[in-house]
């Protein structure tokens, strides 16, 4: 291949963009393994240590509790949101009900409301319910945020499945629920898995509601990061270690999605 000027410009720009995007992440990963005195230097010449991770998991930071909170909130949200959303998405995709389009728009339109507008009402509501600083409150809020998005996403996958196989199954003697179990779910599985991971990531990274609705017991990882800004200054090396804890699971999941995403596309139905 002839390497034209364009080729060089293209590579140059890609490199530039990657650097801009990846620099903070690389910086975070490096800092997480530095001693406090090295934290402010950009030098790559330092002796790496795991002490930051030990510190964040012990008193007074107790990152372990936050990890647990985050895992529980995100998992329970996914476990409730995805099955509900899958059924809703199937109905929106297959049943020609009057007002279907409007209803679907209504559900999607909840996504256009800025979170800051509703965070205060939520706060007041949970306060009167006595649910402030509980995982339950976070799960409820996350369900409200995430479910419409997941419905929309799964509907896209189900729309792409031709109805022929479902009709054949109904003729063969399957009830609607049996059709969903035997035909739709296996065919939509890659899409549903992808949506689940998206849902998990969204919940995992949710910050605003968790910040306002939790104080001590139900604090999640993103909120936990804030606590490393102390009167003694910002503890960058600890914040970075916690940041790594937040980022790594998401990285892994993103990789998983990537693999399943291509499979979801090629699994396609058969004419």
């Amino acid at each position: 291949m002839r390497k034209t000027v364009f080729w060089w410009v293209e590579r140059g720009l890609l490199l530039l963009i990657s650097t801009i995007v990846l620099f903070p992440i690389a910086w975070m990963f490096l800092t997480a393994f530095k001693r406090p005195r090295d934290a402010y230097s950009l030098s790559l010449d330092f002796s790496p240590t795991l002490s930051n991770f030990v510190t964040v998991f012990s008193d007074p930071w107790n990152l372990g509790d936050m990890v647990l909170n985050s895992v529980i909130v995100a998992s329970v949200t996914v476990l409730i949101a995805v099955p509900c959303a899958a059924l809703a998405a199937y109905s929106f995709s297959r049943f020609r009900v009057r007002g279907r389009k409007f209803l679907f728009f209504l559900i999607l339109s909840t996504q256009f409301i800025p979170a800051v507008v509703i965070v205060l009402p939520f706060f007041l509501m949970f306060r009167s319910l006595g649910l402030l600083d509980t995982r339950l409150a976070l799960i409820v809020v996350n369900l409200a945020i995430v479910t419409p998005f997941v419905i929309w996403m799964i509907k896209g996958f189900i729309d792409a499945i031709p109805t022929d196989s479902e009709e054949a199954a109904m003729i063969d003697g399957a009830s609607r629920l049996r059709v969903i179990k035997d035909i739709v779910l296996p065919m939509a599985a890659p899409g549903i898995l992808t949506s689940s991971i998206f849902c998990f990531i969204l919940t995992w990274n949710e910050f605003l509601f968790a910040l306002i609705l939790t104080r001590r017991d139900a604090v999640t990882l993103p909120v936990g990061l804030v606590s490393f800004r102390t009167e003694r200054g910002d503890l960058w090396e600890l914040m970075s270690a916690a940041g790594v804890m937040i980022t790594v699971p998401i990285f892994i999941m993103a990789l998983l999605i990537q693999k399943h995403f291509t499979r979801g596309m090629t699994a396609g139905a058969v004419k």
Partner: protein
Amino acid sequence: MAEVQLVDVEKRYGSFLAVPKQSLTIEEGEFLVLLGPSGCGKTTTMRMIAGLEDITAGDLMIAGERANDKPPKDRDIAMVFQNYGLYPHMTVAENIGYPLKLRGMDRKTREARVQETAEKVELQALLKRRPSELSGGQRQRVALARAIVRTPKIFLMDEPLSNLDAKLRVTMRAELKHLHHELGVTTVYVTHDQMEAMTLASRVAIMREGRIVQLDTPKKIYSEPADLFVAGFIGSPSMNLVEGRITGGRFEAPGVSLPVAGADRGDVVLGIRPEDLQLTDPGAAPISGKLYALELTGDSTLVTLRNGRTSVCTRGPADFEAPIDAPCTLAPKPGARIHLFDKQTGQRLDA
């Protein structure tokens, strides 16, 4: 086994009338073929019987019971879909066995049934594959096997052989015919292949633009087509149709003068099948013209002659030879059927 009745059934898609109001009774144990050009409403009619398409107006009766609102699974139907409708995530064996599985048949009996059915459609070697690893014809055979793996009340088959190669199509045709003889299940069979229709059907319903234009035994459809559409559609090569008029008990057209029964009138179309004509010596032949084309088909030669607007075809001996544009004369064979149609309405004129 069941009788299927469509009573004043109509199907609209929005404002588009796909199947206009009409009635049709499919007798118990009958093999009814819906025959017609593509887009004439065959699939739609079949999907209404299956319960996959809402019926806009009218009643569908299965075994004497109104079935309009019965879900497909309760109709005890097996269907071959035009576009197969296979389960892409299941193997061929699982596809074929699925109707049995739904009926709670135990694994062992099921596998035996699947094996047996697969042999009928020559799929034994492919049972472990998935549909995406099959050719069109193989997929079609899976769809067929899935339908015939059990004995339902009604078989619905939507062009089940359309994608098979010629040889396999003939084998499968015989297989289906035998199966029907063996089980005696009421069958509705859709095709646009008249050969399939003629060989399989107890009765043929010829459809055009959603309407059934003739419903009769294959023999009757062949020997007494109800109108010009049926006359032109059935038979290969198709019936010769000549426009002309009747005067003094004779049908007259350029190069044609035949005695017919019927009152004097203009705007008549005469129909005569190529099989009912033969080449004759020149002289007072009733049909004469110039040789237009010769097509060798193997056991015979198709001879087409022209005279003005008139174009007539017949079968001649395989060794028939003559130069193009040579004068050529034909006469009806003894006992030949001559059909007369109204040119305006297309309807058959019965003497």
